[in-house]
């Protein structure tokens, strides 16, 4: 009986979303206060029912209700409690439910924290998000209902994919989805602006913190996914240019361009139309990502068992949302305010370059990701595009970005002198080059890649901090939060660049055959295999290889990688042994048993500075959040509240397209 409550909740949420997308929207058009006043309660109701559906599914997992097909497919009696909670989004249907819940949550947040917005405008934002929600609710109910039953239920369920039974995987999907779905807010603001025929600086200022928060979540989600792939897949890589990774990376690239172009539009009023277009693109790419992951059209390490009908639905939905948004854009773009002019040497130019590089990068990744699909569809050939393409493109496009980043904050709006900017940065450049060579020499990493990596990374870090000195000059109080966030993020890229350069240039990897008693020596580390013993967990059994690690004659620590076999489904999985460190990780993964004497194939990595990759990326995410918390976004939007009537009056006169 309880699962049916979930089903009913979903249907009710759909009805409320439909009402939200129509009645208050109509009210906003006719400037009818009473109809618009319905929006808040509809948003709250929508959230409550989405939450209810989600909780019902969670309860089904906790109680092992195997009459629910989705539970039977993704859980079993042996699954530990924490994983039963995360198993809710371990499969396709549940992850959609999570998506819906988050969208409802974002809508609620907009309702609560944007009280200061003019009513007409806020109503439109919420109604547009309501339209998005309709699409996803319909998708869930029609093609992927998590509450479908099998009667009589099986005595025990299948298994949650063992790869997902991991702490990293508990948080990766929710964070990623928070980011994906969060771009729906920026999208809603953009469309609401177009609907009202007014895209102005106010609009951009209101949407900036939301975009920043969504972007920060997306960054954190991608980072966590990369970290998970690193220790869970047993290959020791941190990024594979896998189509599904790309699917999350494209919105990130567009989102990065968006937060920068929003800054220009808000501060200077330049490129307003471009900012709107990016907001549409960021969310469309999130939808495209969902389509790619869910439709099974891609050969990917992430692909779940899929069916094409679902893909078609999302493709159709995407066409409606993106197509509709672009049509509206085409009709309204001439009415968007004209941008203000600027000189060649100015912060506008710097940010324009940022946008150019990030947009082109997104295009390149998109091209490489979609090319196999297009080629197959056109009947040319079945191909796949490998990492060399992406790496080459990325190094080409991101090198100028790394070189230019410190110039951005340093330059003034509208008009500046190159000499004024160059002077303080020249010192940073010299220090970065000297120190870069010195550190590379000290580490013995004498490859072009390692050296350029250190120079580039240090240049970013010093260049960014030299801005702090300039910015603090003549200021009595400290820097505002949005600048602190920016500094953290830019320095974070520096840390990231160093990590990437060191890992790609100086990783040591050895695949070896080892018997108990044998020793493997790599770069001064000695790994001695003592024994291979069977061990047991709550829902798995494993062979565990016990290693002792020495450096010279000094005994350091024990490491124990495992080869697990899960009871249900019998899936085999490698559990990596990791010894993380500030400047290097030791990494051991078991391959397979080679003979009866317990000889195993073993993979040993020494990965220098690999933590810096995720450390840098987390600094980026944190920087985004700190920026978003700046009071000016929230305070000034409150100040707008004092003159809502004026806005409402103007907007109400507009005739929608």
């Amino acid at each position: 009986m309880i699962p049916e409550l979930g089903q009913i909740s979903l249907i009710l949420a759909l009805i409320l979303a439909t009402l939200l997308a129509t009645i208050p929207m109509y009210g906003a058009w006719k400037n009818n206060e009473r109809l618009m006043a319905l929006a808040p309660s509809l948003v709250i109701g929508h959230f409550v029912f989405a939450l209810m559906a989600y909780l019902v599914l969670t309860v089904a997992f906790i109680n092992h209700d195997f009459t629910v097909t989705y539970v039977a497919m993704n859980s079993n009696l042996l699954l530990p409690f924490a994983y039963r909670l995360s198993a809710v989004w371990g499969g396709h249907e549940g992850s959609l439910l999570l998506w819906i819940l988050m969208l409802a949550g974002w809508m609620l947040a907009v309702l609560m924290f944007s009280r200061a917005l003019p009513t007409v405008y806020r109503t439109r934002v919420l109604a547009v998000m309501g339209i998005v929600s309709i699409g996803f609710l319909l998708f869930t109910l029609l093609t992927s209902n998590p509450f479908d039953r099998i009667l009589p239920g099986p005595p025990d369920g299948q298994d949650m994919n063992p790869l997902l039974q991991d702490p990293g995987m508990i948080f990766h999907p929710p964070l990623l989805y928070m980011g994906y779905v969060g771009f729906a807010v920026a999208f809603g603001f953009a469309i609401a602006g177009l609907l009202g025929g007014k895209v102005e600086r106010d609009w951009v200022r209101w949407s900036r913190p939301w975009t920043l928060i969504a972007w920060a979540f997306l960054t954190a989600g991608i980072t966590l996914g990369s970290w998970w792939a690193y220790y869970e897949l047993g290959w020791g890589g941190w990024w594979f240019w896998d189509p599904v990774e790309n699917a999350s990376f494209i919105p990130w690239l567009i989102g990065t361009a968006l937060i920068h172009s929003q800054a220009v539009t808000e501060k200077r009023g330049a490129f307003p139309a471009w900012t709107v277009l990016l907001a549409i693109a960021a969310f469309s790419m999130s939808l495209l990502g969902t389509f790619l992951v869910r439709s099974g059209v891609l050969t990917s390490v992430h692909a779940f068992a899929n069916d094409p009908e679902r893909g078609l639905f999302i493709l159709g939905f995407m066409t409606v949302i993106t197509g509709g948004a672009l049509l509206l854009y085409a009709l309204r773009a001439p009415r968007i305010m004209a941008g203000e002019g600027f000189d060649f040497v100015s912060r506008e130019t710097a940010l324009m370059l940022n946008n150019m590089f990030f947009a082109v990068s997104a295009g390149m990744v998109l091209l490489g990701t979609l090319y196999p699909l297009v080629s197959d569809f056109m009947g040319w050939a079945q191909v796949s595009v490998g990492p060399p393409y992406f790496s080459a493109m990325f190094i080409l496009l991101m090198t100028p970005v790394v070189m230019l980043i410190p110039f951005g904050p340093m330059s003034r709006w509208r008009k500046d002198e190159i000499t004024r900017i160059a002077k303080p940065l020249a010192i940073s450049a010299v220090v970065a080059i000297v120190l870069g060579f010195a550190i590379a020499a000290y580490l013995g990493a004498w490859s072009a890649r390692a050296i350029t990596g250190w120079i580039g990374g240090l240049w970013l870090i010093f260049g960014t901090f030299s801005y702090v000195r300039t910015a603090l000059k003549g200021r009595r109080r400290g820097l505002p939060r949005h600048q602190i966030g920016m500094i953290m993020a830019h320095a974070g890229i520096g840390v990231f660049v160093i990590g990437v350069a060191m890992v790609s240039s100086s990783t040591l990897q050895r695949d070896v055959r080892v018997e108990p008693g044998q020793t493997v020596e790599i770069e001064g580390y000695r790994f001695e295999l003592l024994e291979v013993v069977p061990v047991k967990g709550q829902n798995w059994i494993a062979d565990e290889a016990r290693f002792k690690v020495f450096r010279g004659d000094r005994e350091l620590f024990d490491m124990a990688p495992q080869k697990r076999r899960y009871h249900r489904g019998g899936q085999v999985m490698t559990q990596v042994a990791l010894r993380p460190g500030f400047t290097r990780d030791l990494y051991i993964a078991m391959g397979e048993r080679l003979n009866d004497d317990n000889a195993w194939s073993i993979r040993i990595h020494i990965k220098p500075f690999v933590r810096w990759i995720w450390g840098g990326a987390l600094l980026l995410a944190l920087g985004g959040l700190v920026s978003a918390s700046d009071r000016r976004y929230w305070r000034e939007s409150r100040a707008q509240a004092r003159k809502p009537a004026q806005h409402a009056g103007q907007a109400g006169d507009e005739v929608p397209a």
Partner: protein
Amino acid sequence: MTPTRKKRLAVVMLILVGVGTATAIAVTTMNDSILFFVSPTNVAEQDFPHDRRIRLGGLVANESVKRATDSLEVNFDVTDGNHDVTVAFTGILPDLFREGQGVIAHGRFDTQGVFQADEILARHDETYMPPEVLRALEDAGHPIEASMQ
């Protein structure tokens, strides 16, 4: 032309040149890093590019996996039901590599006609089958094997 227009023109030209260069480089790089999918039947019919790395896909034939006991060498056959191709690989196989399961191998043929793989891919999920492999099995007239495994 006014100075502003000149500047704008310069910016537009700069963007065009940049995008043009990037596209040209993208197309060339992509050409080099594209992997063509080849099924065992394609191999039997000699219907594949001989001079480059390819992506071979099919099922791991039953009872074909042979491991060396003193090194990491492994040999196995990839089949689509009609034809078999022998694959040689040195290294650690993925967890989901198993006889009767779908597999994808990247590499080249040596002069003896053995496929020397440098990368073996199997997937995260037991029930998952690479779409190309599914299609290759269908084309070879053995679609059932795929859905039964």
